[in-house]
């Protein structure tokens, strides 16, 4: 199978269909990433489109030091964050917000106690730890790719992920709502480990 770098060479030589191959290959994971940040499918689609356009425009600046995938992730994350910032600045019609939230809760958010507890605890994590955790678990990225996106050394990316998981384990095992999900023997083991 042709690597991204090989396909990029064809793009740089003027083969626009090669860029289309890259779009097809990466658009799904970028859409997930954008959807997670902006929380709205239409806005996420716009973010992905804008990100590919930016990537295409700036292709010459991509030196291949990082993987193309993590470069795209960086662009998409920045674009999605800007979009979110823009949305927050807009004046908001309260009724529309209610509709959007209701639709989302029906189709996407299915909360159990465990999910709710995890969401709350993940939200409490420091930014870098939360980012490492979600990029690894939700986006299935390697630590090398996470390091490229977070612009940090490989070991730091891995340490952020470890700390996030350990903190979550602590919080979940301490949760009274989830008593029983994590057996107490596990909890004792954790306390010894910590």
């Amino acid at each position, binding site marked *: 199978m042709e690597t991204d770098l090989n396909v990029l060479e064809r793009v*740089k*030589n*003027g*083969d*626009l269909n090669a*860029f*289309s191959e890259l*779009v*097809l290959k990466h*658009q*799904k994971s970028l*859409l*997930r990433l954008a*959807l*997670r940040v902006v*929380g709205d*499918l239409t806005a996420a*689609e716009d973010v*992905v*489109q804008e990100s*590919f*356009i930016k990537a*295409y*425009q*700036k*292709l*010459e*600046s991509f030196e291949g030091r990082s993987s193309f995938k993590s470069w795209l992730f960086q662009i998409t994350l920045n674009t999605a964050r800007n979009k979110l910032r823009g949305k927050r600045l807009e004046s908001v019609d309260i009724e529309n917000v209610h509709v959007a939230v209701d639709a989302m809760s029906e*189709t*996407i*958010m*299915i909360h159990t106690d*465990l*999910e709710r507890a*995890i*969401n709350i605890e*993940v939200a409490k994590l420091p930014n870098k730890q939360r980012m490492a*955790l*979600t990029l*690894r*678990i*939700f986006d299935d990225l390697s*630590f090398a790719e996470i390091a490229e996106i977070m612009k940090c050394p490989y070991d730091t990316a*891995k340490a952020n*992920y*470890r700390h996030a*998981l*350990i903190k*979550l*384990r602590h919080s*979940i095992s301490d949760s009274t709502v989830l008593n029983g999900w*994590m*057996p107490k*023997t*596990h909890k004792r*083991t*954790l306390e010894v*480990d*910590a």
Partner: protein
Amino acid sequence: MKKLEDWIDYLEGEGSLRERTEMNLLLKHSISDQMVLDNLRRLRQAVYETDSTRGADLLLGDKQYMEKMQSQIMKEVRKTKQTHAPNLTVIAGEETLSTSEQDPARVRGLYRT
């Protein structure tokens, strides 16, 4: 007994072959280590299941939807130009020409200019 960090690395496929072999051996004999690993696995899976985009799995798995999105993106990409990409100036010309050839109205338009 191994540290929690070691089991996280193990779960993520990290560590040398030697370390992993040693841990595999440990798992055969140590119930407490088995429990720690099992617990981490369950936690990881639970976190995975909280991904809000899972609700959109059906749509994201729809080939037609993804192809439509790809085509929309490429339509916009074709309108843009790369920065510092001399090769593509020529190609952009070819793109216009090939589109025009399929569209007589546009060919006429080109003649006029």
